[in-house]
């Protein structure tokens, strides 16, 4: 039970890393709309910074800079969002970027996998109906866990390719993200890995749109944002 009435103390707990996953997400969205809270966080970071300065220095392994450079090569120029992005979206976008980059997943690997997926989907799709766009959702280890197909008539479906272990009392929630400023939206909730139509309704749908699956409480994420571990994710690509 963390009391909400002293935002300064809550900001301190956030900087200490003591908020749980769901609390962190809630706190960060609150901070996005509350500059005072952002300032409180900044104060704690400055206050505690001398502790980080006591850390031992370790020589990086020889390949580290090269790995960074390679990854930079794939993502190219920095995002010029300082002026164009509304302040309210920044925190969520930042948080999302963390997911986006999880565990240093190679973007190049994803691109290759999307190409692979086109062949894979052809095999899956025995029906005459061909999807217009496809997203292959990859696990952290670049294993294809599911495919999202989008059809010309607006239907969108998720087809699992792997059995996914869902803990008791939890469910798999499917999310899409088309605009970082808006943040991810839930488009489906399933109790286990099974084919399911996704509810995109009026949400936009285009290429390079992110779909991802996270583990959430059985009734879905309590915050309306992903809170649990990411099982798999991928970007939509247009079929040839």
């Amino acid at each position, binding site marked *: 039970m963390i009391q909400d009435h002293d935002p300064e103390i809550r900001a*301190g707990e956030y900087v*200490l*890393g003591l908020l749980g996953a769901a609390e962190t997400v809630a706190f960060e969205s609150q901070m996005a709309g509350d500059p005072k809270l952002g300032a409180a966080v900044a104060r704690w970071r400055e206050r*505690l910074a001398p502790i980080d300065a006591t850390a031992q220095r370790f020589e990086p392994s020889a390949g580290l800079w090269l790995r960074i450079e390679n990854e930079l090569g794939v993502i190219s120029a920095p995002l010029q969002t300082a002026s164009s992005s509304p302040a309210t979206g*920044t925190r969520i976008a*930042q948080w999302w970027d963390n997911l986006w980059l999880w565990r240093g997943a190679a973007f190049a690997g994803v691109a290759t996998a999307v190409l692979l997926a086109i062949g894979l989907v052809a095999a899956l799709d025995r029906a005459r109906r061909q999807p217009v766009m496809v997203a292959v959702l990859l696990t952290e280890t670049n294993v294809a866990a599911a495919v999202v197909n989008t059809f010309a008539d607006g239907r969108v479906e998720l087809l699992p390719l792997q059995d996914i272990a869902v803990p008791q009392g939890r469910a798999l929630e499917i999310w899409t993200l088309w605009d970082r400023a808006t943040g991810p939206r839930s488009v489906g909730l399933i109790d286990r890995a099974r084919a399911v139509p996704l509810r995109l309704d009026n949400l936009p749908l285009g290429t390079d749109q992110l779909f991802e699956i996270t583990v959430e409480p059985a009734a879905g994420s309590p915050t309306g944002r992903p809170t649990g571990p990411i099982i798999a994710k991928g970007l939509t690509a247009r079929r040839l």
Partner: protein
Amino acid sequence: MAVNAAQSHGTGIEQALAACAGGDKNALRRIYDQECPRMIGVAQRMLKRRALAEEAVQDSFILIWRHAGRFDPQRGSGLTWIYAILRNRTLSILRDEKRMETDESPIAEEAASEEDDPETVMAKLSDAKALRGCLETLPAPRRGMVLLAFVQGLSHGEIAGKLGMPLGTVKSWIRRSLLALKECLG
């Protein structure tokens, strides 16, 4: 000493961030040369394993590059901004690793280095006078909790387990410690 060195380079970091926002990769390399060894140290205190620590640092440099344009010098120093990115990234790797429960031994069970022990960290804080002085006003067990959270990334529950104290006590002691630090540091 580390603190003083870091502070004297502060403006350099801010200039380098501005150059990164303009697409200058050499500027990112300058930040890397100056901060990477200590960033690995900060991440390793929490993640224990060098490979994971380097992964956190790698991700952080990508995030620094992508978001350099968002850095606002009005809201704090460039160095603090960089370490905030590193800490967020490190904590999410730490929490993910714990959730994934791979068959490798969990991070939580790996022994922390004595270097990362709260009182050792306190001893190293000598140069940062204000923070050290304020931490010293707290009873040792209370400042220990704050340091275990910040340095090793332990959760309330892990701190309670480690110290053999009830969870509620840990939560309220940390809250009171934060209140005292806020009063003391202003």
